[in-house]
């Protein structure tokens, strides 16, 4: 078991009038060496050209570190590789690279982005930063000054958040009456610290989103530059249990119910018969909600000690469909499938407990064989959750 779960979230608004951002935020998880790398890079200027510079930087950084190159070497390589801007004769993309090794060692290297903010227990912590001088690769005209990179490292603690952003955030509002010199690092810091104090469980994505929206607000709703923010959050893993299908042997009903009851995390039952079994064993009452009525999906139900109850196959099939379409949850209709999806998105470790008893009702020749469908739907779900959403998923058949 890893000491912490690492959640990464980001949000971005491109400069008004540009449909491509010149800032890039990228993350990569390397299973084999248990590393997570996040890069925020801001290419010179804005638009496509800046975006290419930033993407190149991000890809190089994640690629090199993934190949086990040290973060310092990587930074040097990037400085040497960036192409030169034909207009301004300088090669330039700023970056912040966050490398989390086995969840226990954080190394950060920064080049010309606003400094990152480390939030620990609602306060700012300032790690010691060392300067690294790197000669810039391309020499145009006179010798350029060496670039100064800042490196720092620390051991993350449970609850730590690393917040890093492009200068579109810290310079937001510049030139306005309220913030003539812009929001500033301290402004961003105070805002973020306040948010975390008010909402100690705020997710990485929510925090990044809030910072970016606030910056856009300082820009009077018209971003003057790309506004990008990333957050790396070390927290306890959120677990979700989904039970679907009755056990083969009715003797196992009780075990299923007690497993369900004692599970440390959120709990969903997909399937009426399964729900009835658990309700009977735990002596609880199931209430079907008739308020949520998307007529294509059976309505959800609720019961004490369960976070959600839904019908089985139709609903899970819909969840698979939503995931395959990469649907935005905010734009989906309110129904049981969306409710499951929301739980899936909010969880890190997802466990499926799948009963393999054949449902007599569905053996009607006009109905497809349910057991097979259930297995396939859950297999598909597992793949989608692992590959598209980087969740940790396990499936157990009972």
């Amino acid at each position, binding site marked *: 078991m890893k000491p912490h779960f690492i959640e990464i979230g980001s949000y971005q608004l491109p400069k008004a009038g540009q449909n491509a951002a010149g800032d890039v935020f990228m993350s990569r998880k390397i299973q084999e060496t248990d590393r997570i790398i996040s890069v925020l890079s801001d290419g010179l200027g804005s638009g496509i050209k800046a975006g290419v510079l930033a993407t190149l930087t991000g890809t190089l950084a994640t690629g090199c570190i993934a190949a086990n190159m040290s973060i310092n070497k990587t930074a040097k390589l990037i400085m040497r590789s960036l192409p030169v801007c034909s207009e301004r004769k300088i090669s330039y993309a700023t970056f912040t690279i966050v490398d989390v090794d086995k969840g226990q060692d954080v190394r950060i290297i920064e080049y010309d982005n606003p400094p990152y903010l480390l939030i620990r227990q609602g306060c700012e912590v300032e790690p010691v930063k060392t300067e690294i001088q790197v000669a810039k690769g391309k020499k145009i005209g006179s010798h350029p000054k060496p670039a100064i990179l800042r490196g720092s490292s620390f051991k993350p603690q449970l609850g730590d958040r690393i917040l890093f952003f492009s200068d579109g955030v810290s310079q937001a509002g510049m030139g306005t009456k309220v913030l003539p010199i812009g929001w500033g690092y301290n402004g961003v810091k105070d805002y973020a610290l306040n948010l975390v104090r008010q909402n100690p469980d705020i997710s990485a994505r929510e925090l990044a989103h809030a910072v970016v929206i606030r910056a856009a607000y300082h820009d009077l709703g018209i971003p003057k530059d790309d506004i990008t923010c990333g957050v790396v959050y070390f927290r306890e893993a959120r677990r979700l249990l989904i039970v679907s299908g009755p056990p083969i042997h009715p003797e196992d009903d009780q075990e299923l119910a007690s497993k369900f009851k004692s599970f440390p995390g959120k709990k969903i039952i997909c*399937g*009426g*018969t399964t729900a009835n079994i658990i309700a009977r064993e735990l002596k609880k009452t199931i209430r*079907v909600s008739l308020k949520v009525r998307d*007529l294509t999906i059976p309505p959800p*139900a609720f019961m004490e000690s369960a976070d959600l109850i839904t019908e089985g196959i139709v609903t899970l099939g819909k969840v698979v469909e939503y995931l395959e379409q990469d649907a935005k949850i905010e734009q989906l209709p309110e129904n049981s499938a969306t409710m499951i999806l929301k739980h899936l998105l909010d969880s890190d470790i997802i466990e499926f407990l799948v009963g393999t008893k054949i449902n007599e009702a569905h053996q009607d020749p006009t109905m497809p064989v*349910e057991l097979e469908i259930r297995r396939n739907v859950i297999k598909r779900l597992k793949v989608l959750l692992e590959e598209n959403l980087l969740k940790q998923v396990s499936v157990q058949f009972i």
Partner: protein
Amino acid sequence: MNQVKVTICVGTACYVLGGAELLGMVDEMTAKFGGKVICEGSPCLGFCKLSRNSKAPFALVNDKLLEAATPESLLKAVEEALSEVQNG
């Protein structure tokens, strides 16, 4: 107690065989009968597993079982039940 309780099965078998349409009746019945009719949903009522010949979707009007229920048959059963409780 002169209320009629309607229980609509929302289990898989019932739902895919037409139960969704029954749920569509909930608002209509509430508008028509007000507090006299109480509608509830239920996970699989178990009838779909009893015999090959019984037909989903199922609904209960008080204790009376409705097989192969349609919006029309449900409405009729509710009206009958209402007149029963009112007259008796």
